[in-house]
């Protein structure tokens, strides 16, 4: 397998807020060709900021403190703006978290789906129209001919999300980055959209990075899951290892807070407190303030990712010690 995107030791902060915020603090991850990678973690754990940083899409006062993001032999963090324009939309497609941000409200649906093909000179206009119509139909948009002439506000949330996916796939990119693509949708529509997204990506053998805070979504569509907290990787596991053998206290906390469909109240497990905002680079384990197992070493030393299996690693001193004791 070959690596499509490799992020190394990425650090991003926001210096000019009254207290500097350290959003991403040494993140490393890779995604292999054809793989569907899930990135999970609570709000504020740095999922969006790290991916936006790799695409040079962070706005305002964000500062990339260090790191590399390798894609096709180039470091995306250092590629010139102009070269970036030949990558975004063409080699890397994006679907954003916020529904409203993704589509241009003043532009007809059809023109928006054709735009990436024309902008990257992939085909002429009639051909772009033909491809756009077939793509919209493939994504389950009913009556694409009619929707082609409509504006985004005339569509339901589920239809708009299908159109956004169509725009992201229009130029046949190799890598799709989807940030909470179904979070704003109702459950029955969410399943529909995930299903067409999965089919379309499989057919094109695309590589996908999907950010979600929904473990149900991640475990049903992803091949591997990376758990983030405090802008770092806590655990990285192939999906069966993630479901059956996750070891990190934060991963277990997230799993424990999932509300079971039982129809009767029992006690819910909870992670104490809420996700922290870091005004200093975390010295020890970023999760230490909330971790039920935290001990001295957690406050002072950053846990390294420890390999637990061929496709499973976790960053936790407790796990590290247990491994040392066993091995």
């Amino acid at each position, binding site marked *: 397998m070959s690596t499509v995107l490799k992020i190394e030791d990425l650090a991003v902060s926001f210096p000019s807020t009254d207290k500097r915020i350290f959003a991403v603090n040494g993140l490393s991850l890779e995604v292999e060709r054809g793989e569907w990678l899930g990135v999970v973690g609570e709000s504020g754990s740095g999922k969006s900021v790290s991916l936006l940083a790799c695409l040079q899409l962070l706005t305002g006062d964000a500062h990339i403190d260090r790191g590399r993001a390798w894609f096709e032999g180039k470091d995306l963090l250092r590629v010139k703006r102009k070269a970036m324009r030949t990558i975004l939309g063409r080699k890397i497609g994006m679907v954003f978290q916020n529904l409203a941000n993704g589509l241009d409200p003043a532009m007809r649906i059809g023109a928006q789906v054709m735009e990436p093909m024309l902008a990257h000179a992939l085909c002429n206009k009639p051909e772009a129209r033909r491809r756009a119509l077939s793509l919209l139909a493939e994504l389950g948009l009913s009556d694409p001919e009619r929707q082609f002439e409509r504006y985004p506000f005339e569509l339901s949330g589920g239809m708009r999300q299908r159109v956004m996916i169509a725009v992201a796939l229009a130029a046949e990119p190799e890598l799709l980055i989807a940030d909470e693509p179904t979070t704003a949708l109702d459950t029955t529509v969410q399943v529909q959209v995930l299903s067409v997204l999965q089919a379309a990506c499989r057919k094109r053998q695309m590589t996908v990075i999907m950010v979600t805070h929904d473990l149900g979504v991640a475990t049903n569509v992803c091949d591997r899951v990376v758990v983030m907290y405090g802008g770092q990787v806590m655990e990285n596991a192939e999906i069966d290892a993630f479901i059956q053998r996750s070891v990190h206290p934060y991963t277990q906390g997230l799993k424990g807070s999932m509300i079971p*469909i039982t129809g009767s109240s029992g006690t819910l497990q909870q992670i104490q407190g809420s996700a922290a905002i870091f005004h200093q680079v975390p010295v020890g384990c970023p999760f230490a303030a909330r971790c039920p197992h935290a001990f001295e070493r957690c406050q002072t030393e950053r846990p390294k990712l420890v390999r637990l299996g061929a496709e499973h690693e976790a960053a936790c001193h407790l796990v590290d010690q247990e491994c040392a004791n066993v091995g």
Partner: protein
Amino acid sequence: MSDRPFLQIQQISKSFALGKARIDAVRAVSMTIAEGETFGLVGESGSGKSTLGRLAIGLMKPDAGSVRASGVDLVTASPAKLREMRKSLQIVFQDAQSALNGRVSVASNIMEPLVIHNQGTPSERLRRIGGLLERVGLTAAHGPAMPDELSGGQLQRVMIARALALGPKLLVCDEILSALDLSVQAQVLSLLEDLRLTEHLAYLFISHNLSAVSYLSQVIGVMYLGELVEWAPTKSLLEKPGHPYTKALFDSILDVPESKAARKPLTILPGDIPSVIDRPKGCPFHTRCPLTMDICRTVPPQLVQVGEHHHAACHAIHAAG
């Protein structure tokens, strides 16, 4: 748990103008919430849940139908009587940040309803607030804090404390979990359940989150395009959903599978939700229903009893039963 009805809603409807058209946000809904009971309300976006929530506590007047709380009809009550009733009928919204006054302390925010309703002396109010903060899992030390110093979960607790200030009997919770992380959602759910058991509070719990609704509610109602299409005790609804939409809704929950190999196929309901302007004739669900029959396209099914305390509106059940 008592079975004494606290809130009784009879055939209420509410429509809004949308350009030249009118949309029926709530259509002929009837339901009952017992004292100390959680009634969970689910349904897709735009199905009328928030509108029903506002109608239920007299924040909005229905075009037709009646709403009774403790036997008092909120629709015909005098303004003075309605004001009196409002003490026992409170609501908490999703967006705690904007629902609170950001320029005054947490304590002042909680005190506001007490001041408006002229309850207690200033020192009694202060004592009350300390108690309320502790009741929702905060401490008196949070009183002087400004809202922007608190996290989302803490703000939602402050909102609940404020709603509890006047000693309500029914709390409408409108999507109060949406902006919260999973771990914090679990904390808020535990708090609500605890309050129900200790204060005998009833809830109308509106949420997209089906797991949360089934966890918390004794009774669940399902809305589709403004209509209450099914309404039943939670256990009965989960085990024997009567309406095809209810079934599709609960089937669409993505649970963590036992392994990759054990994943269930992503179940699909065809089509998108119709726009409220092009409401389908007959059964509102017929454009997506796997069981559609001829009669469904023309005749709207009535909500009828299909089991013990179990009501559903679907021709297929009526035909079978």
